[in-house]
């Protein structure tokens, strides 16, 4: 997960390198640290360094890390020959290395040789049963073969051991959402909010899932979490502001005729609408009219 500033920084560097302004190594390091998936760029710029003997030797021991990074990027781009070459270089330098063994197994996976890859991962796990990356590869393989329930099973097993892996919880939640298993997705986001209560992304995702589940109680809780997202983001999150409006409208629809929630709820909706209008006026004036008619259709509840 990346912050806006980090993403801006990476994009700036990427632009610079793409246009011949240098900085390829800094870019590759940043992508590696932030764990971004920009395989086509990594492949292109990584290879430009590796294929140039002068640049390569100036890296020193980091050369091998770059080979590893480029190998993985090559596999992601289905350039399996490039990946094989990188792995060969690493094998020569580090014979009998488990880390290189992992790359070999990943190459089998990239080729689609699922059975061999599974065997390779199993044997690697025997020697190192706590290797998180390999555990997760199993779930990835299931997902790649279209076996979503298998992917879920592997991820759940993984999370029983490594319950602090936020990325895994997020991946699981996203798989659940794609299968419309919203209750299970909600559970994942609850875990994430418990362990990282000040991360607005989780509050927002949780609210979205609750809204999708529907029902009065879920909508009311969703509204609370949209509100907490707004709180955590200083009122800048468009999705949360719109979420408030949607929730208020839907709650109004469901409670028509019963006792209303009181002025408090319409105040919140008004504030959210005002914040949205202000933002659109400033940053997206061409869309202001559309926003206003959207808000109007959401206020027509009572």
């Amino acid at each position: 997960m990346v912050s806006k500033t980090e993403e801006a920084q990476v994009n700036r560097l990427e632009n610079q390198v793409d246009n011949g302004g240098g900085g390829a190594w800094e870019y590759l390091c940043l992508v590696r640290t932030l764990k971004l998936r920009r395989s086509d760029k990594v492949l292109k710029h990584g290879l430009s360094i590796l294929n140039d003997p002068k640049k390569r030797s100036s890296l020193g021991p980091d050369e091998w890390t770059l080979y590893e990074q480029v190998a993985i990027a090559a596999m992601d781009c289905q350039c399996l020959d490039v990946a094989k070459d990188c792995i060969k270089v690493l094998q020569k330098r580090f014979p009998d290395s488990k880390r290189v063994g992992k790359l070999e197994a990943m190459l089998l996976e990239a080729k689609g040789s699922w059975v061999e890859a599974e065997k390779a991962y199993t044997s690697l796990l025997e020697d190192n049963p706590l290797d998180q990356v390999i555990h997760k590869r199993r779930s990835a393989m299931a997902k790649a073969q279209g076996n979503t329930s298998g992917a879920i099973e592997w991820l759940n097993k993984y999370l029983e051991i490594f319950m602090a892996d936020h990325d895994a919880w997020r991946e699981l939640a996203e798989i659940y959402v794609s299968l419309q298993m919203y209750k299970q997705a909600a559970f994942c986001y609850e875990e994430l909010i418990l362990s990282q209560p000040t991360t607005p992304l989780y509050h927002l995702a949780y609210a979205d899932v609750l809204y999708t589940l529907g029902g009065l109680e879920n909508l009311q809780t969703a509204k609370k979490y949209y509100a907490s997202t707004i709180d955590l983001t200083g009122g800048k999150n468009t999705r949360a502001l719109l979420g408030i409006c949607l929730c208020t409208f839907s709650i109004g629809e469901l409670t028509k005729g019963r006792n209303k929630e009181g002025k408090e709820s319409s105040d919140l909706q008004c504030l959210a609408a005002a914040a949205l209008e202000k933002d659109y006026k400033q940053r997206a004036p061409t869309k202001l009219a559309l926003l206003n008619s959207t808000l109007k259709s959401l206020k027509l509840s009572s």
Partner: protein
Amino acid sequence: MGGEFRYQIGQNAYIKFVLHALKHKTSAVNGVLLGRLSGADTNPVVEITDSVPLFHSQIGLLPPLEIALIQIEEYYGAQGLNIVGYYHANERFDDFELGNVAKNVGDHIYRYFPQAAVLLLDNKKLGALPNGKDRSPVIQVILIWDRTPKTMFSYTLPFLHAKATKLYTREMSKSWKVVGSDGSSQLTIKEPSANIVLLDYISSEKWQDIIDFDDHLDDISKDWLNPELFK
């Protein structure tokens, strides 16, 4: 029924769809198709004149979809165009199934436009595009097959348009059927050289410029109408 209508997609609508999918190679993407029904009763054609890329993450969530549909209907309604279909590209290369989320959105659109089509990106065809001189669209067309739902159960969703009740067919997998793939003329592209233009855009990495509704919600200064895309 489903087989009677022809579908014609304009170049811009078609290219936006493919570029959207290419921008987000590692996730599923979706969008809506805008257009109108034209031609007399003797030769009805659904003209798809434009498309709006919607999302590339967490496609199964309602709030962004509801907001998007309100705004899209408002904007295009003023131009006399309807939402006539939905497009979807799967996350995996060899996945040719229409998932449940896509079917649900398709069902929803179908209720307002009975000739609605769901277009699914054909990844294999897209991959083969640079090789051949294929003029047919790199899309599978999926149409509603069974118009009268056999068994129904109600499912409550605070979906704005459906106003708290939505009906699904129990046998969902039978309700959308693939038609018109591989050579059939069910779906044609209006401009015959569209694939050539598309290849050109692909080689110039034009997909980087496409904005979808997700991008807009993350940064409202980005315009989901993509007014500058083809200029």
